[in-house]
């Protein structure tokens, strides 16, 4: 049976969306059937990154019980060079929709959790998807915690920023652990990664600080900043060091190395 991966972080700007998109694309490139979901309802961005003009139905509509999940999925398989399949479910970027999602009450959130849990049956069981990747909002947002509860694995994106490190540690202890979630950490935007000493020191520090499996360390690539989100590295630049790191990360997840 397939897996649900929630990509989450304590702070914004840690590279969750970049990681989600490229991880989903990498899985698809490796022959898997994947669906990427934008669950960042406060700041939807996948429609812009993937250059999709509109959707028949948004993830918002699915969670609101207004449509079936099949109407939400957009097939992007033709963008991949490989045997896999890539679909995406987008969050509605209109201001009114963002406002609507921000005003939901606890009952609605509970119902939304039921709808997310139902994806396991509808997509992993019935449609034989290998991976569902949830791109979430940072911090303790209702929608993000729902995504974490529904997921099998949480990939936590973090940086070297002191407040981010502190917040990530707290979330590991007080959120992921409480829900007994398998968790792997991705350290993003790391400077001076080429020096061997620095690399070894960082591995030790990460191990001691978080005490969870390390999914990967991503150096601060100027190419990624320069690209301004205009292309997907895993698909458009498969030989770029970032894409190669993603290949390794996907293999680790696929081999169940995160316990």
């Amino acid at each position, binding site marked *: 049976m397939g897996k649900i991966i929630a990509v989450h972080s304590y702070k914004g700007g840690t590279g969750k969306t970049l990681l989600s998109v490229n991880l989903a694309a990498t899985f698809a490139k490796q022959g898997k059937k994947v669906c990427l979901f934008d669950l960042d309802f406060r700041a939807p961005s996948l429609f812009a990154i993937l250059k999709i003009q509109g959707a028949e139905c948004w993830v918002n509509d699915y969670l609101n*019980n207004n449509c079936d999940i099949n109407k939400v999925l957009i097939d992007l398989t033709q963008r991949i060079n490989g045997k896999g399949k890539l679909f995406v479910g987008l969050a509605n970027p209109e201001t009114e929709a963002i406002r609507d999602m921000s005003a939901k009450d*606890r*009952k609605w*959130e*509970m*119902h939304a*959790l*039921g709808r997310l849990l139902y994806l396991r049956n509808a997509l992993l069981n019935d449609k034989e998807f290998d991976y569902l990747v949830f791109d979430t909002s940072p911090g303790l947002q209702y929608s993000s915690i729902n995504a974490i*509860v529904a997921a099998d694995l949480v990939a936590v994106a973090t940086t070297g920023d002191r407040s981010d490190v502190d917040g990530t540690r707290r979330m590991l202890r007080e959120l992921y652990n409480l829900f007994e979630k398998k968790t792997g950490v991705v350290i993003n935007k790391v400077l001076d990664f080429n020096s061997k000493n620095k690399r070894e020191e960082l591995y030790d520090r990460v191990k001691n600080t978080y005490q969870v499996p390390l999914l990967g360390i991503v150096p601060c690539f100027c190419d990624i900043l320069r690209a301004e989100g205009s292309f997907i590295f895993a698909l458009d630049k498969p030989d770029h060091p970032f894409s190669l790191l993603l290949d390794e990360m996907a293999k680790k997840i696929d081999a169940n190395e995160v316990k």
Partner: protein
Amino acid sequence: MSKEDVLGKKPLVILEKIKENLERLNEKMEVFIELQKHDRKDSRQPLSDTPLDVMTLLSMPDHLRKTAMTICRCGRATAEETSQHTTRARAVESAYLNQLVLMGYLKKERKGRKAYFYVERENER
């Protein structure tokens, strides 16, 4: 119950019936203990009117969260099925499940000999 039933024709059926009755009795005692703990007389009025959402799950004690999470994942399960997921004893799960029902977070429904526990969600699908 006839003499031949007791002597061997249906001993398994009888034992199962006794087990079932003991389980029901056990459940009733658990409900009674919980009611006494909270100084209440009526089990139909839940302790809480907040839904079983993720924030409620986060604030729960660990032992109840584990049980509640299992029901959230399965949608609907008996104490036996829950215990298979949590790897705790069936009787322990039965106590926790009934406690969650009393707290108003789960619903309980009997179908024949089995009691099913579930989260009530309106317009699920």
